[in-house]
């Protein structure tokens, strides 16, 4: 899925890649699974972060209480969202900021473009932000002739590589050091300060190359765009946490700051930050505290940006909120702990999910933001809730206790109902499930099916093992790499009946 090499002249003009066109998950996963380098990069990275997270979480005896508090605060926010949003708007306005409301991606992008043009700027520097990735702000601004510079290291690697993100927190997790070095050498020169001559793949050298490349953009930029980790309704304070300091540069140097924030990012009071500033860094980067925590309230004359715009983004969140089971996905604080423990994500990587939100949280958030509660969704979106073995590792680590397996199963139900409503005849799967349900409704039918299967296994099974079954069939995928034990010639219930209450001996 990575964009191939292209002549430099066309590359500057071409819109950056988006996830549009990603095939349904099973197919996208197959491509990713075949990439040995990707598997190796991901396996190494997720194992490291997983182990570190477990260690720092274990330091806190009150971790479960923190999780419960985090979930309770977020649930309270979701219950009182309209009032809290009004409170936030009033507080930000009082502090000298301007609040904008955006129903969807197009509205939000247009607002950002308008503010940037009004500021007389033709470029913006960006703080790492999921909300702006979600609305494909970079592509929209480029169409308006505005250059966009990602300044988070991993986000910059993705942008320079004409690539797609594969992780919420570490979007270039699928890249190793050598690949990053090559991207820097080939691409930095096209968009600004070139990579130093003789650049190696040493982390220190790579970081220095990024620092030098970014520095000229920080010092030149007049407009910055950020997301928000949290916003405090009572004070109007917006919070961004980060590791590299690039965010602090963007948030303080340019004259105009535009923050795009999903409406669910609120917390009611300043005090509530106490819970999340403990939950988030330990879950995300396995740090006790993140290196940079920037908090600002409106504008402060003589200090930082002179204009602050806060764009409150819906983009499917209200629809998500209307679903009593699915709405818990809106508690998410984008820590990525669920990605790092997910056995599916570990093997397929994030791009297979066809969304900026990959992994378990993406599998429940993306379909909801795309409106699954209101209308049928496309095949790729419909495949996401099934991209899980329901092992439950994600729920165990979620700092706000989102029961991801529960929501996955709930969304599978919505997909099935939409499929049933849109097909006059049942799909092969629906037919099979219907037949199975019919069979399992009475013990008589089940016993009959078991007798038939027992007879059948005498025909197909060799030494009691089935290596394949004729025709593709809905379960053909089983037999590509796996054998199956043939159905027993005598089922348990038949044995029980024959031997009489299990007391009649063994044979």
């Amino acid at each position, binding site marked *: 899925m990575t964009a191939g090499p292209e002549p430099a002249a066309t590359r500057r003009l071409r819109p950056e890649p988006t996830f549009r066109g990603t095939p349904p*998950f*099973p197919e996208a*996963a*197959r491509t990713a*699974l075949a990439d040995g380098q990707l598997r190796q990069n991901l396996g190494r990275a997720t194992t490291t972060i997983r182990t570190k997270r477990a260690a720092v979480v274990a330091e806190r005896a009150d971790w479960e209480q923190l999780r419960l508090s985090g979930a309770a605060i977020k649930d309270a926010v979701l219950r009182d969202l309209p009032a809290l949003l009004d409170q936030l708007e009033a507080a930000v306005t009082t502090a000298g900021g301007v609040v904008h409301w955006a129903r969807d991606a197009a509205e939000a992008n247009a607002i950002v473009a308008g503010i940037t043009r009004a500021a007389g700027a033709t470029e913006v520097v960006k703080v790492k932000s999921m909300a702006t990735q979600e609305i494909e702000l970079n592509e929209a601004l480029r169409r308006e002739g505005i250059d966009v510079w990602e300044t988070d290291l991993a986000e910059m690697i993705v942008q320079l590589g004409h690539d797609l993100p594969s992780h919420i927190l570490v979007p270039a997790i699928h890249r190793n050091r050598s690949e990053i070095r090559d991207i820097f050498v080939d691409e930095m020169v096209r968009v600004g300060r070139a990579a130093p001559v003789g650049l190696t793949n040493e982390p220190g050298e790579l970081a220095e190359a990024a620092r030098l490349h970014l520095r000229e953009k920080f010092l030149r930029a007049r407009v910055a765009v950020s997301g928000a980790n949290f916003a405090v309704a009572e004070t109007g304070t917006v919070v961004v946490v980060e590791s590299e300091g690039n965010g602090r540069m963007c948030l303080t140097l340019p004259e105009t700051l535009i923050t795009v924030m999903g409406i669910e990012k609120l917390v009611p009071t300043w005090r509530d930050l106490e819970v999340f500033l403990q939950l988030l860094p330990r879950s995300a980067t396995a740090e006790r505290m993140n290196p940079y925590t920037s908090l600002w309230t409106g504008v402060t004359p003589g200090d930082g940006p002179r204009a602050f715009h806060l764009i409150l983004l819906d983009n499917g969140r209200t629809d998500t909120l209307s679903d009593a089971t699915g709405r818990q996905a809106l508690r998410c604080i984008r820590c990525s702990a669920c990605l790092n423990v997910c*056995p*599916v994500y570990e*093997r*397929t990587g994030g791009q297979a999910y066809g969304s900026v939100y990959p992994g378990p949280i993406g599998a429940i958030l993306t379909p909801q933001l795309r409106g699954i509660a209101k209308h049928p969704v496309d095949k790729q979106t419909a495949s996401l809730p*099934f*991209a*899980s*073995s*329901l*092992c*439950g*590792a994600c*729920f*165990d680590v979620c700092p706000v206790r989102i029961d991801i397996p529960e929501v996955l*199963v709930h969304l*599978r*139900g*919505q*997909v*099935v*109902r939409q499929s049933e409503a849109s097909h006059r005849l049942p799909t092969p799967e*629906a037919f099979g*499930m219907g037949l*199975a*349900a019919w069979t*399992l*409704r*009475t*013990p008589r039918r*089940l016993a009959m*099916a*078991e007798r038939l*299967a027992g007879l059948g296994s005498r025909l197909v099974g060799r030494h009691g*093992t089935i*290596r394949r079954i004729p025709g593709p069939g*809905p379960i053909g*995928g*089983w037999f*590509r*790499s*796996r*054998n*199956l*034990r043939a*159905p*027993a010639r005598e*089922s*348990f*219930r038949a*044995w*029980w*009946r024959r031997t009489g209450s*299990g*007391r009649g001996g*063994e044979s």
Partner: protein
Amino acid sequence: MRIALFIGCYNDALFPEVGRAVVRLLQRLGHEVDFPLDQTCCGQMHFNSGYQDACIPLVQRFTAAFAGFDVVVTPSGSCASMVRRYHPLVAGLAAEQGVDTGLAGLVAEVSPRVYELSELLVDVLGLTDVGARFPHTVAFHPTCHSTRLLGVGDRPTRLLRAVAGVTVVDLPHAASCCGFGGTFAVKNADTSVAMGLDKVDDVLATGAEVLTAADTSCLMHIGGLLSRRGSGVRVMHLAEILASTGAEA
């Protein structure tokens, strides 16, 4: 004690020896085992695949079949977690649709009495040494639903380690999912197999003769991969090991 056995539909049809082992074990321990012939399936496959409406009659049947029993045992952590965690949700669905408003009450009565085998042995019967003998090297795979949904903890391994003659070897990355996942195994066959092959590598690295677990479904998947690879490692349900007395062939 009179104990009702819920066998689970796939054990019934594909792995009857697991049910026979549970019966043999519990009878050896002096208990009376009942197998209500009205039982069919807990509904997990339909529930987890999104066919939740189809579960309602299955849950009705389950509660009717086991209503009269104080203790129900099943040799499946996965089925037990379906019954204990999700039957109440199915009952809620039945009430919401006006299909059956009484189901929730029945489920509340029956589902808490359903135990996975290791829970029954350790918690209800107070045993860890069940008098088994199994002179083989064994690796144990803690299945996801038994550990994460049901919380059986170390009960299965305490039972296993108390077996005479057994050598238990540690399985690397034991807590990682094997990739079965019900219909996931066929809907996302490639990913499922990739997960399973990593599990197989871990199993083979232990040098164990036997891989055991509290769920036949996961073993069917891992065993299918081992068998295709021509490996000599056998998969056995924990019940079969606990039922062994060393007198078997």
